[in-house]
């Protein structure tokens, strides 16, 4: 995930560090001239301002999605030297070629092609996958729950361990606990997720036998439970099959923990730095001088104000896990969206690649923007 996934995220971590890090200055929009006028006039009430910022948010969101579609369109139609040839093969006759070109609408101007592409995407028509023969939208609906299940457990692990670790590191700054957490954080930036997955399999599955191997469930349990939500943990509980539930858990535990490690590394690092900011504030000193118990100073006085910043961090981390699962799923043969994407990549199945890119990109953008908005709604200082 790190890059890769977490490339780390990478990639994505780097970006996060920029948007979420430090002051959070990047999170706040600059007021547009229109907004400034509104403020100067002091005419508009809260409602009008709320409506204006909602409208602005929706506009930004729509433009971002349009940008995403422009990029996938560009990748799918413009970069390949001849998309028609990819469909008909290089031995096609001139007539077959022309027919395919017309059928694909490639004789029209690019702008028209783009608009019809946007229309298709909005109607959920992502084309057919060459490798599975089904429509890409249907395929994605089938594989998405697997990824969701893994990423959700991953973020739960990451938050449950990462936040307390960050707080402890901040309160015992410079101690060995702090150093260990710091090293863990750095490893989160520098260990390849796929490598950790392989090593994890070798150690915990083959070596120690603590967890089940690749795949979501043992082969003889496969298909025994009716898919209701597509999440095996939920479905098996609904069906009242504890045996299947525990089997699914033992398959899920290792990949989710590895994803969790990467979000833990990031969340702990950010929590630590937020906490240090708070612990250095005068009101914390005041509380201590008043004789408030240290535990209460830490968890109530210092921790409460950083919850909002943490929401942003956790949101970004969650979106990153969806992305990071690409690598992990490949290693664990996890039938999720990441695995679907990489299989499609290797088969040069462009419709499937672009569909998966669109879905992951959209979820990523949505989670990103929602945590952004939550931050501004919840933090009184960020309200304007």
């Amino acid at each position: 995930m790190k890059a890769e996934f977490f490339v780390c995220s990478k990639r994505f971590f780097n970006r996060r560090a920029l948007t979420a890090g430090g002051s959070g200055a990047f999170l706040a929009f600059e007021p547009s001239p229109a907004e400034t006028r509104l403020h100067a006039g002091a005419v508009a009430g809260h409602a009008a301002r709320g409506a204006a910022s909602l409208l602005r948010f929706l506009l930004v969101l729509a433009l971002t999605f349009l940008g995403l579609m422009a990029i996938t369109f560009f990748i799918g139609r413009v970069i390949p030297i001849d998309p028609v040839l990819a469909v008909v093969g290089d031995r096609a006759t001139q007539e077959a070629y022309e027919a395919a070109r017309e059928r694909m609408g490639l004789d029209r101007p690019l702008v028209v092609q783009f608009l019809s592409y946007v229309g298709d995407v909005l109607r959920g028509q992502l084309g057919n996958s060459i490798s599975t023969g089904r429509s890409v939208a249907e395929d994605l609906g089938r594989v998405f729950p697997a990824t969701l299940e893994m990423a959700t457990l991953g973020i739960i692990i990451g938050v449950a361990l990462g936040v307390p670790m960050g707080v402890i590191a901040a309160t015992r700054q410079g101690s060995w606990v702090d150093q260990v957490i710091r090293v863990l954080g750095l490893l989160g930036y520098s260990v390849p997720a796929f490598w950790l997955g392989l090593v994890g399999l070798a150690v915990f599955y083959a070596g120690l036998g603590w967890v089940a191997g690749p795949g979501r469930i043992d082969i003889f349990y496969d298909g025994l439970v009716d898919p209701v939500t597509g999440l095996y943990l939920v479905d098996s509980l609904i069906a009242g099959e504890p045996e299947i539930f525990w089997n699914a858990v033992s398959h899920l535990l290792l990949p989710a923990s590895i994803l969790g490690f990467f979000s833990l590394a990031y969340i702990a690092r950010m929590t630590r730095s937020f906490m240090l900011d708070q612990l250095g504030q005068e009101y914390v000193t005041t509380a201590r001088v008043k004789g408030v118990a240290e535990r209460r100073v830490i968890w109530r006085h210092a921790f409460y104000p950083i919850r909002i910043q943490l929401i942003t961090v956790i949101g970004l981390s969650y979106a990153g896990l969806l992305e990071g699962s690409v690598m992990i799923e490949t290693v664990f043969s996890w039938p999720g969206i990441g695995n679907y994407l990489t299989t499609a990549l290797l088969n040069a199945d462009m419709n499937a690649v672009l569909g998966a890119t669109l879905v992951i990109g959209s979820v990523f953008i949505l989670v990103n923007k929602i945590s952004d908005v939550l931050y501004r709604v919840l933090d009184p200082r960020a309200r304007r």
Partner: protein
Amino acid sequence: MSAVREWLLDDSPSSRLQASFGRAWRMFSALLRNPLAVAGMLIILALIAMAAFAPWIAPYSATGQDLANRLVPPSAQHWMGTDELGRDIFSRVVYGARITLMIVVMVAVIAAPVGLVIGAVSGYFGGWADRILMGVTDIFLSMPKLILALAFVAALGPGIENAIIAIAITSWPVYARIARAETLTFRDAEFIAAVRLQGASAMRIILRHVLPLCASSTIVRVTLDMAGIILTAAGLGFLGLGAQPPLPEWGAMISRGRNFILDQWWVATMPGFAIILVSLGFCFLGDGLRDVLDPKQRENR
């Protein structure tokens, strides 16, 4: 030696050259006081040395096969063992340093200047130019980088050059943001106004006066991003979309070792250690550089 030192640390340098050498020396000695930064520098120096002197360091050839010695565990002859074609893994890791180094350098050389120019133009001119450029930047910023890189490689075709292009396309927006933020802080400064009054063109102001001032925060950022770039490149290699066999790319080597992970663990794990070490090196150096060059961003510790 001490004469050189005095010349470097002179409080009133007599030439521009002396001033900039002196500043570089002060930064360098500040960096030397940070043990982690020194460790990072040593790791990266080792990487560069491995890349430069690979034929002399590697005991075997990176591609020569020796089927009699397939999958030999690590030993005195083969420090990291051999792979399924009997190739010495240590030698392949050493040669792989060249590929890794080339990827990070190429991505930095392509992405950083593009991002810098876009950010500086956007910040300097403001108005519509700013809105459009930053709109595009924000759209790229809100995309998942790895997925975007994967999709670009899918369209461009597998291969190391295309992997570099794809990673560069996903890396520039961060630098554009940084350059814009820096440019805004001194766009209205008096020295810029002075240059403008002397008749300097916008291009000259941006290239000669704005960009150099964005350099230090960009260098910090690029160094910190290196780990991510290495991991993305290795990930592409692992998926078979980056460097193609028989090139000894570390990610691709891990992918080959996948089939043997249960019995011949060294095939996949050894290149992974190389990736981790080099990424850590860049993280350490980046953290150290940030403390020296960009004290505002300094993390509490």
